[in-house]
């Protein structure tokens, strides 16, 4: 590791070729570059906000477990964030003799395309899934396709194709599998431990060498835009045309990408994606699994980070309420100085967090609920998957031996200007017997905790009512009723 080195170009592999770019603006997106600079026009723009998936490509990167390929949205992925990766577009799939890839042939044979505009994105998402899981379940396919919109087929034909892919070819024979060693070597060679700095004046981007380097850079330039997964900042550029220079890209940054557990507390680095974080979180805190399945689409989960979801302070972020209910803490870092605070104290007001200039969220620490306590999180949306919460409630409950409430933390998103505890409701429950009567009485306290807004996602009335009812759902769930109490996709019909 050549510490202290500065490189003035972004280097990555595009399909088979090495690419080095020395004039990259911080706001240049991968999609525009592919289409306009490289004339690779198989990757489409459908929405330019990471929602429709027509621009899906795979990004191969070296992770702790080796080379992984993940689907991402090229429309909101910045070129500057690609250093040291392998970008795979739909043009890379056809064989040398022009023959279709198994994923493509299955889509053709099962009539998986109609207008065809979304199709390359579907092919890439299915390709990513097939490499990880050659014979996936229906639920796994649906999950992998949550970030891909098709307006023609009604998806049925695509599902049939997805189920058939494994009969068209073996993953082991896939070019990306065959090239695996070679690509790994080439990517390793690209990771030279240097800081990347490109541009000057009004258009400048930095890719720090590691977390320490980031801390140093950000301390020096506290007004810089910090970009992790770009699932939020991407839209500042594509929709609002905001100037993000100078931008610091911290996705996949060494030192910010670890998930560790110590003494029942899981610590998640700010650069860890949803996908990586939840692979641990869902195992240790199973109630988080269903939530993870409903955050964004696969591409967004592969890009977005929990650190970003917390740091941007949104009142409708999906992770802060459950993390608050779990009693999570946050480590903030500025230069070499760190401080750790309860997560709930981080959110001060709308658009205002307890973060000093040059300070950044370094890690989130999540206590695993101890045995015997109850924890649940419920997301309420217009559309079940890939939607932003109308409201989201998270509940943590510890009962005393006598069946009274010994400890309770209830936190909501979408109900106030910040993620917020339902303190009056909690107060009404604390020390009381955990019965439906108590719960019903506590439900009356919601009005003093929250005055939700009406907007395009829901009216204030609906938010208030649904939020309140979530407590009843939690009660029913914790008391072990056998009757089904919520609808779910996976429940057997």
């Amino acid at each position, binding site marked *: 590791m050549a510490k202290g080195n500065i490189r003035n170009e972004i280097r990555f592999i595009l399909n088979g070729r090495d690419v080095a770019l020395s004039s990259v603006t911080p706001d240049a997106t991968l999609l525009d570059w592919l289409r306009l600079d490289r004339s690779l026009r198989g990757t*489409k723009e459908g929405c330019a906000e990471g929602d429709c998936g*027509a621009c899906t490509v795979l990004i191969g990167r070296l992770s702790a477990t080796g080379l992984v390929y993940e689907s991402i949205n090229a429309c909101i992925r910045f070129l500057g964030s690609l250093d040291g990766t392998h970008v795979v577009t739909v043009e890379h799939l056809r064989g040398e003799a022009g023959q279709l890839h198994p994923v493509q042939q299955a*889509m053709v044979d099962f*009539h998986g395309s109609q*207008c065809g505009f979304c*199709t390359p994105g579907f092919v890439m998402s299915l390709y990513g899934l097939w490499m990880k899981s050659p014979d996936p379940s229906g639920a796994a396919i649906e999950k992998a396709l949550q970030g891909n919109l098709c307006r*023609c087929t009604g998806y049925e034909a695509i599902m049939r194709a997805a189920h058939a892919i494994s009969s068209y070819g073996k993953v082991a024979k896939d070019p990306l599998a065959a090239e695996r060693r070679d690509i790994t070597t080439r990517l390793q060679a690209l990771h030279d431990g240097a800081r990347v700095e490109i541009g000057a004046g009004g258009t400048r981007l930095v890719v720090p060498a590691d977390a320490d380097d980031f801390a140093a850079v950000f301390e020096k330039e506290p007004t810089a835009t910090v970009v992790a997964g770009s699932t939020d900042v991407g839209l500042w550029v594509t929709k609002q045309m905001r100037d993000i220079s100078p931008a610091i890209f911290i996705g996949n940054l060494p030192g910010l990408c670890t998930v560790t557990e110590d003494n029942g507390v899981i610590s998640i680095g700010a650069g860890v994606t949803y996908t990586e974080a939840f692979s641990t979180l869902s195992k240790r805190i199973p109630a988080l699994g269903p939530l993870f399945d409903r955050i964004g689409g696969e591409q967004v989960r592969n890009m977005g980070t929990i650190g970003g979801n917390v740091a941007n302070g949104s009142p409708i972020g999906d992770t802060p309420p459950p993390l608050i209910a779990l009693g999570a803490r946050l480590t903030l870092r500025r230069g070499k100085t760190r401080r750790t605070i309860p997560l709930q104290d981080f959110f001060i007001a709308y658009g205002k967090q307890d973060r000093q200039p040059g300070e950044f969220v370094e890690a989130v620490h999540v206590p695993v609920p101890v045995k015997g306590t109850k924890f649940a999180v419920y997301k309420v949306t217009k559309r079940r998957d890939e939607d932003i919460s109308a409201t989201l409630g998270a509940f943590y409950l510890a009962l005393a031996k006598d069946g009274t409430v010994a400890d309770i933390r209830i936190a909501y998103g979408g109900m106030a200007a910040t993620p917020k505890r339902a303190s009056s409701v909690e107060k009404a429950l604390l020390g009381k017997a955990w019965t439906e009567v108590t719960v019903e009485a506590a439900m009356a306290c919601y009005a003093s905790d929250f005055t939700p807004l009406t907007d395009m996602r829901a009216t204030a009335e609906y938010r208030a009512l649904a939020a309140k009812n*979530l407590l009843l759902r939690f009660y029913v769930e914790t008391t072990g009723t056998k009757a089904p109490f919520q609808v779910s996709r996976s429940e057997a019909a």
Partner: protein
Amino acid sequence: MNKHAPSNLKAEKIVGGVATDQRHDSAHKHVSGGAVYIDDMPEPAGTLHVGLGLSKVAHGVLKSVDLSAVRAAPGVVDVLTYADVPGENDVSPSNMHDDPVLAEGKVQFFGQPIFAVIAETREAARRAVRLAGIEYDELPALIDIWDLDPTRDKQVTTPLILKRGDAAAAIQAAPRRIKNRMWLGGQDHFYLEGQVSLAIPGEDDEVTVYCSTQGPSETQHLVAHTLGVPSNAVTVEVRRMGGGFGGKETQANQCAAIAAIAAKKLKRAVKVRLDRDEDMTATGKRHDFAIDYEVGFDDEGNILGVDFTYALRCGFSADLSGPVGDRALFHCDNAYFYPAVLAKSAPLYTNTVSNTAFRGFGGPQGMIGAERVIDEVAFAVGKDSLEIRKLNFYDSMEAIGARCVTPYHQKVEDCIIQRIVAELEESASYARRRREISAFNANSRFVKRGLALTPVKFGISFTKTESNQAGALVHVYADGSVHMNHGGTEMGQGLHLKVAQVVAEEFQIDLDRVKITATTTAKVPNTAPTAASSGADLNGMAAQNAARQIRQRLTDFAAERYQIPVDQVVFLPNRVRVGNQEVSFNDLVKQAYIARVQLSAAGFYKTPKIHWDRGKGQGHAFYYYAYGAACAEVSVDTLTGEYVVERADILHDCGRSLNRAIDLGQVEGGFIQGMGWLTTEELWWDDKGRLRTHAPSTYKIPLASDRPKIFNVALTDWSQAYEPTIHRSKAVGEPPLPHGMAVLHALSDAVASVADHKICPRLDAPATPERVLMAIERLKKEVKAGA
């Protein structure tokens, strides 16, 4: 596909004729990224890009428009306003002169284009747009139609009245009456490829526009109109669209006109491609409706008379709102006979984007009014809605009696809804599941299930008679390969493939010998837009006509050359039997060419029988009807209103399908799109008239995981078109969309269970989880109040 490989001269059947399952002709290109959409075409050197400046108020006078900073911005080449439109500043498709290309003097909706920046890059154009200084004198804005008066408030075009019998008297005399009102939201098309046009200037007054349009002829005419040149100066071409659904019937014209005007002015190629947010903000959608209904019925549930007023939110201009409102009325009966009926449309002016065609074109909205009435009657008499539906069907075609006349006085001669519903009821185990669901609901405190089976009868033909014509151009080249062109456009529905199958069938040659080519106004003129489900019906016939002309010439030539009667010339697969010998198709063509036989023909078709007198509200508006039925089951969480579709079964009538694989895709896709419209797709305007659901982050179309958990779709294998349509097939574009009604009614059924099915839930659409929960709450309150 090796074009040089010899054709199979021994085959018993050609490959790819009609009534065979063929893959989409572009499928291999779709999956490999090789299918070229307008934005993928190589751009001519020096191509300029457009950014549109949109109104920031819903209604106002343009007090001042300062574009100096826009002009001075980096990369900007020019800025266009209405003053730069050389012809008429209007793209009204209905000749109403109410649809400016660029706003002049005033703006009438939030998002209306005021100016167009032309810049070296798209990004430069988009950035420059933001520098405009526009001042408005705001005027009061009408956003919602709920509170408007359908009889007195401003309308964008003339309403339609359908009347048969004396509805008022029939309702008055009926043993029971119900009067109410329902709300039905609109829908954004959400084609994955947004609006896009690339204009390339030619010599003199000429311009070629590559445009993602469903109506190239109309785009051509309107571009010419705005340029002030004759139509012969303008060529419009489209190879394929990335989805249309009606959203590129008229809505493509504005972008095409702006691109063409800029291209002619600047003598450079100009591309307009809207960002998704701009597209959803500035282009029209499916109309939302407020439907007033009154029904008179007897204790059995027989409908005796109905009175409907369909008020529709048209937006600021007429666009296609007149015909959309008309089609709503044409479908206010769905599959039901009304002994007496009065139905009126009210195309209301609002300060919102001008609404337009969307798959079904008002028909689905019309049907939903009918189905609400059925529900009202069913709850009133305490019967299962399906019983009431069956009671009120039109007479079946085998047993036509007096109950066969529509509100527009056309006789329904081909009704097969009884058989379809009976078969679906059986295959979906409706009765058994009805019992199971009752038992389930009795034992489930929070989750309630619902079931519904809804029919569809959809009228096929443009009600604008002149649109029911089509042209095709077929060339047979000297090597026997065929070039096919017609006026229809490809937006994913497999139209080109179907028409190619028709041509292959006529010549009895394998499908891969027929080349599909881009739709262009230079080859086939004056075509109807590809809309009203008519694509294959009209263009298939026109192409068949062209192919038959050439085949006839080949037959005549062969008879003469081989000195045999014409009836001894028989087209066999890839060959022709001429008397006692067989000649390959290619050889016969070669011989015909050498003998100077014309091997090219223009085909034409016009739909027979149809006529329509709008003033009287009477006529034979539709050539035939397409039928189908859907049965859906849902689970609803009564704590949040969230739901899943447990199962859906559909039986749909495509007549003798030209290509069952394609038709199945249309039915599946149509159902899901209809379901989306009625469930999660909600358009939401704020009090300033800004559409706040203008992107997929806020506007939620169905995902793969919204599909029914069990989804059984079948086509009737016994039906055929009653009229001599192309190979007795039936149109399939729009008719499946209203099958989504089954989901709305299943949700309604689940809601009704919280009041023991005693109260009609009157669940409006879209039935978002919020609307479902609020309906549940309302019913619970009514039960409490009644207890």
